[in-house]
Structures are given as structure tokens and as C-alpha cells.
């Protein structure tokens, strides 16, 4: 049997999520529990609350605290060309098909601070497709979106990104795309000409465009099965027939209800193709 304290904490977390939903219309009620539990405990410590219900009280009454709490409800970790094999597989197996469309729409769902979408823009540029592409980069974290649009990354990470870029089949040098500025690097503005950054939630919003590629990496891991099904349902509806879906390295369609709507293209890189109409 579980101890009562743990039961109570879980109950309080559920109440807090309900309160956040009613007050701020952000829906975290179907997020994976284990990770939420961990991050709510961290938030309690950070904000000096003895109980989850104290945190809830403050959240209800202090809107400014909610925006800080968004950093605890969501996990902002990203990297340029994270898992180079994924980007290499896009180049080799997806780009040749995208090339056949006169205009291309792509959706990076859960783009965080932009590392993934800037990587994709560079890839499209090198393949000569950026000019006729439109990339929607969406997230619920508005601060992350702002950072993403800025295209400015910590100089400490650049060496790692360059290595990833090379391993991903990069055709130039990553240094060709940024200029150094103080403690950061700023990526070439022309790369984001065709990127639209927008606030969009996979938990509460609906499909907004038809696209040929959805890249949604390391976002579904934070959702429970029901919400994963909702999100993948949105991707299925947004994708054209034969359109591509790329997931994170350890994410799989296998356990969800939409598994039949897709077939693997590069299984080990989690790249799928929509087969259903």
C-alpha cells in the first residue's frame, strides 16, 4: 500500500493542475505524472512552499508567479542537430520527397528555444529548399518562443553543435551561419525569413495548417498516453497523405492508438510516414 503522504501529494498536484487550467487555461492535467511530481517538488523548494497546496494558493493569486512556474511545468532542454543521425536521415530519406512539392510546409511542434528549428532551416537551406518552405515553430512557453525567434545561443555550446552538425551531413561549416556576439552567437537572420514562431498547445489547440513534415521531438515524453494520442492525432490530421512525422530518439508510435495511420521510414531514427488518408 502507498503511504498516505504520497497519496495526498498526488491529490494536491491534481488539484493544482485543475486550478491552473481554470485560472490560466494551460492544461497540464494529462502530463506524465512521475516527471511532474519531480518538478512540482523542485518548484515548492524554489518558491519556499511547504505544501503543494501553498503553491496552488500563490499561483492562483499571483499571475507573475505563473510565468515563472511555466519553467517548471515544461522542460526546456534542447540542442542543435541533437541526434545527428535524425538530421542525416531527414537529408537522405525525407528531403528527396519534399523536393517534389512546389511549396513545402513544415511544423516543429514543441520547438523550445529554437535549436531544432534553426537546425532544420540550415538543412533546408543547404538542400536549396528553404526559399520555398514555410516552417511553423510552435510551443506553449512564450519565453522560449521569444528566445527561439532571437536565434541567439550560448557560445559554450557551439563546439558541441558544430560536431553534431558535421555528423548530420552538414555541407559547410556551422560557423558560416552565425556571428559571434559577446557571450553568444547569433544566427543569420535570413534563415528565419520563412519561420513563423507561434504559441500553440498540443493539449488544447487544434490543427492550423496542412504540412508535409512534422518534427516533434522530446515533447511526447512529457505526456501521458491519452495526451500523446491527442497530439499524434493532430499530426495525422495536419499531415498530407505520405507526409512525414519525426519523433525523439526514444519516442515511439507503437504504444498509441494512431500507430496504424503511419509506417516507419527510418525506424531507428523514429521517422514515420502517414499512410492513412
Amino acid at each position, binding site marked *: *500500500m*502507498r*503511504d498516505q503522504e*504520497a497519496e495526498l501529494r*498526488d491529490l494536491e498536484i491534481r488539484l493544482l493542475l485543475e486550478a491552473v487550467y481554470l485560472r490560466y487555461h494551460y492544461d497540464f492535467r494529462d502530463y*506524465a*505524472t*512521475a*516527471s511532474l*511530481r*519531480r*518538478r512540482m517538488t523542485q518548484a515548492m523548494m524554489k518558491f519556499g512552499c511547504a505544501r503543494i497546496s501553498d503553491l496552488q494558493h500563490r499561483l492562483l493569486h499571483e499571475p507573475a508567479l505563473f510565468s515563472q512556474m511555466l519553467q517548471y511545468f515544461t*522542460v526546456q*532542454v534542447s540542442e542543435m542537430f541533437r541526434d545527428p543521425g535524425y538530421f542525416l536521415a531527414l537529408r537522405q530519406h525525407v528531403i528527396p520527397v519534399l523536393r517534389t512539392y512546389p511549396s513545402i510546409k513544415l511544423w516543429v511542434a514543441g520547438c523550445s528555444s529554437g535549436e531544432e528549428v534553426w537546425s532544420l532551416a540550415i538543412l533546408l537551406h543547404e538542400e536549396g529548399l528553404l526559399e520555398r518552405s514555410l516552417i511553423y515553430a510552435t510551443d506553449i512557453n512564450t519565453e522560449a518562443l521569444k528566445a527561439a525567434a532571437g536565434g541567439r545561443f550560448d557560445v559554450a555550446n557551439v563546439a558541441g553543435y558544430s560536431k553534431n552538425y558535421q555528423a548530420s551531413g552538414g555541407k559547410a561549416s556551422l560557423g558560416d551561419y552565425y556571428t559571434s556576439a559577446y557571450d553568444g552567437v547569433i544566427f543569420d537572420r535570413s534563415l528565419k525569413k520563412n519561420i513563423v514562431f507561434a504559441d500553440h498547445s498540443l493539449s488544447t489547440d487544434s490543427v492550423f495548417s496542412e504540412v508535409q513534415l512534422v518534427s516533434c521531438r*522530446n515533447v*511526447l*515524453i*512529457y505526456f*501521458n*498516453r491519452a495526451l*500523446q494520442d491527442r497530439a499524434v492525432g493532430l499530426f495525422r490530421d495536419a499531415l498530407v497523405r505520405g507526409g512525414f512525422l519525426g519523433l*525523439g*530518439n*526514444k*519516442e*515511439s508510435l*507503437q*504504444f498509441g492508438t494512431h500507430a496504424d495511420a503511419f509506417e516507419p521510414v527510418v525506424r531507428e531514427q523514429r521517422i514515420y510516414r502517414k499512410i492513412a488518408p
Partner: protein
Amino acid sequence: MKPSLDWQHDIDAIVVGASAGGVTALRELLGALPADFRPPMLIVLHLPRHRPSTIAEVLGAYCALPVYEACDKQRIERGSVMFAPPDYHMLVEDEASVALSLDEPVLFSRPAIDPLFSSAAAVFSNRLLAILLTGASTDGSNGLAAVRRAGGTAWVQAPEDATASMMPAAALAYAGAEAVLTLEEICQRMRNRA
């Protein structure tokens, strides 16, 4: 120390943490599991972050049970051994599945032992056995404390028996344990399930 563990009834899951020296220790531990061993075993071994891991394959060769690396929402199957993948934390989501996460590294490690142990404690409470093995880290101390607070059982490898003594010694000092055992004794208990 609890008198004995009736495996079939008292333990629903086993979590294991290991760091430096862990590959060798885990090879012995997995080698000791009998083919009819039922409780699922979830393992965090500290790994280099940016390399795909072959640990499940490598150690699977020594184990009578299926050994695999977790995917997100992977089902926890009885009679199997699951490793956290490199660069993700592995958490117990509910009695039937794990969830992965990219939360910040804990004590420079991702995967880390603390998140696995703490999340397992929250789900399995007193039906959990946690085993902390060799390592040159203090990861696992917090997790082991959470396991014991929730009524679970903690076994720690005797520091003098471990290739790297820091991790077990730190956890013993911080959290204590139901039993301090040599690796051979742990393996023996697995073989006997007692």
C-alpha cells in the same frame, strides 16, 4: 533488517543503480538471475551521454531474461530487465510503465539514479527493492532515502567490496540500508530469491 523477502508476494519491482565499475558488477548480477525470476528489474547505469549504448545487448548475453533499453512509456514486464537509455532520465510512471525525461542532469548524470529510485518509491512504496552498487558519485543517496521513507527495502553493496566505494558509502551514511552485502551475497540472494 527484514527477516526475509518473499519475492513472489512482497516485491513488485527492483531498481538498481550503478556507476563506475558498474558494467562488471551488473554482468554478475544479471548473470545470477534465474530464468523464472519474476520481479521486473529497472537499472540506471551512468553512461556517456552522447553515444548510443550497447549495454542492453552486451549484458543481455549474460542474462537468462530479456534485457532491453527503455523507450518512452515502455511497459514494465515481469521477468525482464530494463536499462535507462543514454541521455534520458528513466522514471517509473505507474505500475505498468516507465516514462523518460530530459530534465536537467542530476549530479552531472543523465540518466541518474535518484529520479529512478524516487519515482519508483512513489509508485511501488513498500513493494520495492532498491539495490545500489559500485560508483564514484553521490547519486543514489537521495533516491535510496526516498525508497526507505516510502517503506521499501534498500540493499547497498558493501563499500569495501565495490570497485568504487564512494557511491555505496555515501548512500549508507545518508540513507542507511536494510542490508549491506557483497556483490556475491546479492547474487546469491537473487539465485535463492530469499
